């Protein structure tokens, strides 16, 4: 007989609930349950119509099963979305127009281009504003009012105007992403570049450091935590910009195009699977920025 494992290993449930996994799983489970119930509630009227037209006898179980298996449900059930995701991601060649991987790449490429230019633009504006007094007064009102214009109102104009001068596809969408995502970067970086305390600034004066040295040895490193916070916001809204940029032209590729086509033809399952892909993509990009942040913070001696 062995006494292996006696007393030393806690029960499985205890181990799961010791970390975060248990509570998270419970919340996810609750959402799924509510979702399935919601699907029954939303889709039941149409399902009853179907039964009536077919003069079928139906019970509660038939109704529930029916509401979870419609072609064009008002609210698709989770397993229908998963099946659609499997069909369009795994079962299709990535080069196919039916592949969600293809559409995701179309959106991702303009998101990344827009994010990169937006981040650079945001940083350049912030550096200018912090160093030149008149720029703050002259630029800030424009920067702030630029964000009060609904993006849905200017996106079609941008796409049409750029289309007229021969720029189609990637660039107009990236431009809309840039327009959205430079803003949090500018605001965050202005705060970050001004974050060194007066003593740290005075110290640079006592060494009669050049403005260039003060920037690279003090302002820039001090601003990095602010930059990463801004970048997390920027990368997510950059994706929103790219998707919005795909809507007005009836673009053939991209998650926005999938959303639009899905709503034309009442393909709710397609809409939801595109939404899920977009959400997963945004989450992945935010996590990626977070990983880079952690690496940088560690290199800069941040507390573990």
């Amino acid at each position, binding site marked *: 007989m062995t006494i292996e494992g006696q007393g030393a290993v806690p029960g499985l449930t205890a181990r799961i609930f010791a970390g975060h996994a248990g509570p998270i799983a419970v919340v996810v489970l609750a959402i799924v349950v509510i979702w399935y119930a919601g699907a029954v509630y939303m889709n039941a009227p149409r399902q009853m119509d179907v039964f009536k037209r077919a003069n079928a006898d139906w019970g509660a179980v038939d109704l529930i099963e029916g509401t979870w298996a419609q072609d064009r449900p008002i609210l698709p059930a989770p397993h229908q979305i998963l099946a659609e995701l499997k069909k369009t991601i795994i079962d299709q060649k990535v080069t196919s127009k039916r592949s969600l991987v293809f559409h995701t790449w179309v959106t991702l490429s303009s998101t990344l281009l827009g994010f990169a230019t937006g981040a650079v633009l945001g940083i350049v504006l912030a550096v200018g504003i912090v160093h030149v007094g008149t720029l703050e007064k002259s630029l800030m009102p424009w920067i702030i009012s630029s964000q009060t214009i609904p993006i849905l109102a200017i996106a079609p104009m941008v796409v049409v105007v750029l289309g007229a001068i021969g720029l189609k596809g990637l660039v107009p969408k990236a431009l809309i992403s840039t327009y959205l995502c430079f803003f949090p970067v500018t605001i965050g970086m202005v705060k970050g570049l001004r974050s060194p*305390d007066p*003593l*740290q600034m*005075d*110290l*640079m*004066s*006592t*060494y*009669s*450091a050049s403005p260039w*040295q003060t920037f690279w*040895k*003090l302002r820039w*490193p*001090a601003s*990095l935590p602010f930059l990463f916070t801004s970048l997390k916001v920027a990368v997510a809204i950059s994706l929103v910009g790219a998707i919005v940029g795909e809507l007005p032209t009836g673009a053939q590729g991209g998650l926005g195009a999938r959303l639009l086509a899905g709503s034309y033809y009442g393909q709710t399952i397609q809409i939801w699977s595109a939404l899920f892909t977009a959400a997963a993509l945004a989450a992945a990009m935010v996590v990626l920025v977070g990983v880079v942040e952690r690496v940088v913070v560690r290199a*800069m*001696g*941040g*507390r573990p």
Partner: protein
Amino acid sequence: MTPSPVQSGPAGSDGDSVVRAHGLTLSFQTADGPVHALSDIDLEIGRGEFVSLIGPSGCGKTTLLRAIADLEQPTGGNLSVNGVPAHEARLARGYGYVFQAPALYPWRTIERNVTLPLEIMGMAAGARREKARDYLELVNLSGFEKKFPWQLSGGMQQRASIARALCFDPDLLLMDEPFGALDEIVRDHLNEQLLQLWAKTQKTVVFVTHSIPEAVFLSTKIVVMSPRPGRIIDVIEADFPRERSLDIRETPEFLEVAHRVREGLRAGHSYDD
């Protein structure tokens, strides 16, 4: 220890003065009208002296130190540092400055914090590391080169900031209540270390404090200041031997100087508002 006039002569060994202020005034414009932070300051600090500026809050002692460092601009009078105007002395990196807080850059290791001024002055990396090792040894921080500031206690951080002020070997050290935020025990300890450092390096030190024992223990000359407007009301020479221990604080000579400082502070400080 005889009372000396406000315009005391240089007491340094070779007689030339490092800081010379004449009729110095400095006022800030505020919404409620001008504030006279410094009024008609005459002061001479000779080479190798250890001068304390002491007085209650708002007496302008920090402002005077900042004016010497060219971090504040006087509104009148003359001020020369190392024989040139304060502005030129700053551009020539003529002094090391120690602030109330360590003001270390949190993303730099202790070594790289100490060598920051050398980096700005363009010294090569190898030579910088050597200097860092020497000066960290001087302030008893050997072995902490690769640590980050948050891993050190407050007293150690302030010692690192002193090493940073010394590492490019300026003749003049300006210290603005460097131990004000530390507890009494650490402070006593650092005062002793500072004194040894001063004896070893032969620097001129200008030291702002509001602690009478600290001022008397450290200084060759104590400048007593008073607020509204900020002015010098007494300059007291104290010639204790350069090598001294904390024990001298119990001697009658020490207590006598401390008494004079206290009298001066009382005379200049009206509590009627």
